[in-house]
């Protein structure tokens, strides 16, 4: 499963980090980092992360 975050939209709210901590994280400055090639077993979590993103910046491909 390919995860794409539109970093032009992302405003580092971090809600995705709570929903899918194995895929999304915030660094010490509060900026988002993520795994773009996520394990299929994490699909439910990543879908939830996409739902809770206030900017709707997360897309799942495949």
């Amino acid at each position, binding site marked *: 499963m390919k995860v794409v975050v539109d970093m032009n939209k992302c405003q580092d709210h971090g809600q995705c980090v*709570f929903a899918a901590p194995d895929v999304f994280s915030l660094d010490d400055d509060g900026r988002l980092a993520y795994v773009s090639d996520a394990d299929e077993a994490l699909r439910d979590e990543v879908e*939830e992360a996409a*739902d809770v993103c206030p900017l709707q910046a997360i897309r799942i491909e495949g």
Partner: protein
Amino acid sequence: MTGTTTGKTAGTKTGTATGTIVVAGGSMGGLRAAEQLRAAGWTGAVTVVGDEPHMPYNRPPLSKDVLAGKAPFASLAFTPKAAAADVEWRLGTKVVAARLGERTVALDDGRTLSYDGLVVATGMRPRRLRCPGPLAGRHTVRTLDDAKGLRDELTGPGVRLVVVGAGFIGCEVAATAVRLGVAEVTVVDPLPLPMVGPLGELLGRALLKRHEERGVRFALGTGVAGFRGDGRVTGVVLADGRVLPADVVVESVGSVANVEWLDGNGLDLVDGVLTDDRLRVGGRPDVVAVGDVARFPNARYDGVPRRVEHWSIPTDTARHAAKALVAGLTGADADAAPGPFAPLPTFWSDQHDFRLQSFGVPGLGTDDVRVLDGDPEGDVVTGYHTGGRLVGVVALGGPAAATAAARYRAQLLKSPALTP
């Protein structure tokens, strides 16, 4: 946000393909409900009825980027999940009556829809000030069309704006107006500090200072008695006798639940629609409520039913309510399937160059606020306590402050429930 996903759909049987679920309300809550019905195994028909002409869109940018002219509709519209592609959307139409006993709803175009299951997702509308004076020039900010109409009036030279209500939306609008170059921006509120109800005095004072430093004026501790103007507003008359000149007024004084269509069914509609702890309405297995119209008990706190107008609530409630409804319609054990609803509320607010980020329910602990990190003059994280227990955390500042607040989130999730 989370804390709502512990019960997976195990035990939920697949829904029959012949039934129909009607979702009353076509905003984010209606969309999420439709999607979550599919996720919960419902294979029958789903019809969403929405009174706005637009497909569901994201509302937070209305008081910010839309007002600033920086967000076209395409950037606001939600992308429905593929599983919900066969949902029928009836837009520009609203539900005006319901007969829960007969399982029908009436639409404003005269048609009646029969349903097997019903999702109440009709949301809120802005409360309006009932005082004398002209209506023209007075705005609310709830829908896309509201925000566009307000923007059109703010862009002229020398505009004087008065915002009534120093809550989150009012303060966001004021901040955006300053950024737009509106000549005079004044916020009026009967309370002594902005956002003091949900956030308490410590942050209320810090926020007042930040807004004033960035050019927002305040008339606090006084309400609105009326409006001046012949045909169109020219001034706001305050309860203390002062008159603020105004070319444009924004009323941001709370909201009213859209529940009148449920009248006559013996439901508790005092403030939104009362649900049980599975978001079921009136003790029925075939009706649930989602979004800010739902007044639900939160098992994480004191069990008192409350409406919650946070952005995360449509998604949280839809996930839970869809499981309960599908279980109710398919004869599965609805009490076992989703479990009691116990979300951890979270909200944010972007104003000027700073953000407020909240976890938990700070409003339950405004009498005992402690600085957990930082300093109210700069980035700060505050903790709200009830009986010594942490019930809410709010960060004010940049992204690092929000990240610091998030560290307390685990503590909020682990706390035992408040005793009623």
